[in-house]
């Protein structure tokens, strides 16, 4: 088995060599689901090719930014203390949004139980408890080093297993003969290349990095979104499959977003740009007006709601305003906050109307219920009275200079819309009939399961469960 060592940039020779062979399975994508599918296929067939669009240093899609995986388990162990039965995971999944396809959701949940052992078998190491049980969670396993380390491990393991991989290879089309894929078309430095294959697994992620696509639903507002993950998730092959009659699953307009620093990179800022200040501050829009209850939720749910809330504000921008007292209560931001000795001066710094911000802050300060003691560690019930919108917890008066402002924008994590699949991970057409040998795994099909909301670490679970199924089924198909 030749291993095609990714040379980036310039993969022409590897792609031409790839074009000379007839592959059993070609996997489109290079993140977690793609790697799992490729390794699972390679257990059954000899010639497996993984085509990753990103250059080597960016390989791995959004998996690069992940941290843990959520799997059901009936026994406690050193990495996930306590039990997490399937029923509970399913209930958690339903609580964030009704799954589009209950059968697939149940399949993901029940299959999740065998995922951690599979990961260990493929080289993944878990993060031990740091201090006592600190850093451990009952529901989520933390892999050592995070997603980029996971990706490195999987590429190394895939390589050792004899999976061929090429980075910097953009699959632009899938050549279909009726309902059967015959080849994939790759465009690279070598021009257009046709790679023949017995089956195709699409594991190329969502389309959240495709601003033009987002604009179809959100208009120019999409220009102001920050994309937290890889810039390569533009849904190219997903769109192509929709053109070829594939059915879709999930809400087209759906995306998961959190509040990130407005100064974040447009793409790929990942975890580090999220902000912790919201519950201990007030958040105002471009007009210096509050628009939502900053003290409603505790971590991690508060991350999930603010992306959408800010996306709905004019110019999709907001400012978290706080004073020196509150500044000590949360992790400092990646970028330093704007600071000033008065509210009016602070407003000028960030381009807000000074009078309007002063009025908003004064009004808020007057309505803080000071009789309830403040407690950062719990939902303290120290809110505002007769203020709209209310702040229901952690309401501190903003009175002690210096004053601070952090600019916020919606940071899109992923989109929900995906390819409709069945329990064999086969892609379905609009009428619900499967394509013969086209499979999908990971974010590109997670809309079948996650219709809205967010369940931390479950994206990777879907990627593993359906990556295994897709890889196995594709290999069966290719060898039969």
């Amino acid at each position, binding site marked *: 088995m030749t291993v095609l060592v990714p040379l980036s940039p310039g993969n022409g020779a590897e792609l031409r060599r790839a074009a000379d062979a007839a592959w059993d399975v070609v996997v489109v994508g290079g993140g977690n689901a793609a790697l799992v599918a490729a390794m699972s296929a390679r257990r059954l067939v000899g010639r497996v090719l993984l085509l990753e669009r990103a250059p080597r240093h960016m390989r791995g899609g959004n998996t690069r930014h992940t941290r843990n995986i959520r799997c059901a388990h009936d026994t406690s162990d050193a990495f996930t203390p306590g039990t997490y039965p399937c029923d509970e995971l399913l209930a958690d999944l339903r609580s964030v949004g009704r799954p589009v396809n209950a059968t697939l959701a149940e399949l993901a949940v029940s299959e999740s139980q065998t995922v951690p052992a599979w990961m260990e078998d493929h080289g993944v*190491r878990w993060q031990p408890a740091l201090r006592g049980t600190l850093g451990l969670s009952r529901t989520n396993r933390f892999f050592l*080093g995070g997603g980029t380390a996971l990706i490195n491990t999987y590429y190394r393991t895939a390589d050792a297993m004899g999976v061929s991989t090429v980075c910097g290879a953009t699959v632009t089309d899938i050549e279909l003969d009726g309902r059967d894929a015959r080849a994939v078309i790759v465009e690279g430095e070598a021009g257009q290349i046709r790679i023949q294959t017995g089956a195709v697994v699409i594991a190329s992620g969502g389309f959240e990095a495709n601003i033009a696509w987002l604009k179809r639903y959100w208009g120019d507002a999409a220009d102001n979104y920050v994309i937290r993950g890889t810039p390569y998730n533009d849904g190219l092959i997903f769109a192509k499959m929709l053109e070829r009659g594939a059915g879709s699953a999930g809400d087209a307009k759906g995306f998961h977003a959190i509040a990130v620093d407005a100064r974040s990179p447009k793409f790929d800022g990942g975890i580090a740009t999220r902000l912790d200040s919201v519950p201990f501050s007030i958040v105002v829009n471009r007009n210096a007006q509050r628009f939502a209850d900053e003290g409603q939720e505790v971590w991690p749910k508060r991350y999930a709601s603010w992306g959408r809330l800010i996306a709905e504000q004019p110019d999709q921008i907001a400012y978290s305003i706080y004073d020196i007292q509150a500044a000590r209560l949360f*992790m400092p931001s990646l970028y330093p906050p704007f600071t000033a000795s008065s509210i009016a001066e602070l407003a000028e710094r960030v381009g807000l109307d000074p009078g309007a911000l002063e009025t908003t802050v004064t009004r808020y300060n007057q309505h803080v219920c000071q009789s309830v003691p403040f407690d950062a560690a719990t939902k303290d019930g120290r809110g505002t009275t007769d203020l709209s919108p209310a702040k229901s917890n952690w309401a501190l008066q903003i009175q002690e200079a210096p004053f601070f402002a952090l600019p916020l924008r919606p940071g899109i994590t992923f989109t929900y819309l995906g390819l409709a699949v069945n329990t064999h991970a086969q892609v379905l057409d609009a009428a619900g009939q499967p394509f013969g040998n086209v499979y999908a795994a990971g974010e590109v099909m997670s809309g079948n399961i996650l219709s809205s909301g967010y369940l931390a670490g479950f994206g990777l679970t879907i990627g593993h469960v359906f990556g295994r199924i897709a890889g196995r089924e594709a290999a069966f198909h290719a060898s039969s």
Partner: protein
Amino acid sequence: MHLPDLLDPALIEEAQRQLTICNSCRYCEGYCAVFPSLELRTIVEPKDAVHLANLCHDCRACFYACMYAAPHEFAVNIPEALSAIRVETYREYGWPAVASRLFGHGPRGVAVGSLIGIIGIIGLIFAFGEPHRMLARQTGPGSFYVFLPYAAMVTTFLLASGFVVAVMFGSFVGYWRDTHGRLADLIDRRALGAAIGDAFSLKYLRGGGEGCYYPTDTASHRRRLMHSLVVYGFLCDTVATISAAIMQDFLDQMPPYPLLSVPVVLGSIGGIAMIIGSTDLLRLKSRSDTRPAFAKMISKDYGFLVSLALVSITGMLVLMTRETAALGPVLAIHLGTVAAFFVAMPYGKFVHFLYRYGALVQNRLEEDHYARSLEPAKEA
């Protein structure tokens, strides 16, 4: 706090910038002590950057696991940034500053130093010894001292080691005052024991369990093993030297000692361990990825490793040639390389163990403090 004035502010600021990103991410906290220690801080002050820099064992796991490594615009490269501050630490706390500049450098410095050392030893031989017997075969008790009298040899090396120990003690105290403060905390029994364990097991060269990502992006325990060979070899040789001194000065047995004596057996084991360890570390270094490394540190590493290899190889040659006519020149070369090693000790890479040990004690003290801070919360 005089730290910011002493250390290069640009290097400190760069480390602060990167560590702020790390503190917002925290994915690497399972790899070593640096990230959990960072998490105990919300703001990284210059002294924290120095502490974290010396706590870092350069296992490089975090570099390869980082999605923010260059070409990402965040350009996070913790091994490099912290390595740069370590170089500054070694330079800053070495005294006198002029010696720190002269001897703190790479292999060329070691070569020049060794040459000067050899010339110095030959000078001593001409001044106090019997240079005409240099090329003749010497045997029997006291044969080592035929060329260079014991008094001249021992006075030179006692003075040198006294100076070296005094400078390193001063360096360490200065470092501890700046990064921690109370000297008494150094002898906190629990922290002391735990830190010694961390140091001698090279716990943080385990890279979270799989080993260092060295020389390139695949984890391996080889570097930790080789480093251990050098450390334990060096300790063996130190004990061998002390045992030889005892045999000579208290038991009145003049060297050379028989092959099956304590000094020769320990010295040989230590010497062979050091030769294997230092040459393999050199080989690994020559193949290592330079991206997560700081150029000045690479140079220091080479200098130190070359020096260790020279001392151990020439030491074994002394044993092998001790009954031949080559002994005189070989002994002069060996003593010259030892002299160069000694002079560079307080200024080169050798001192890394001092500051790293200080950082390990500090780390254990903080861990204990943190654990205690949780206790009342549990009861409530």
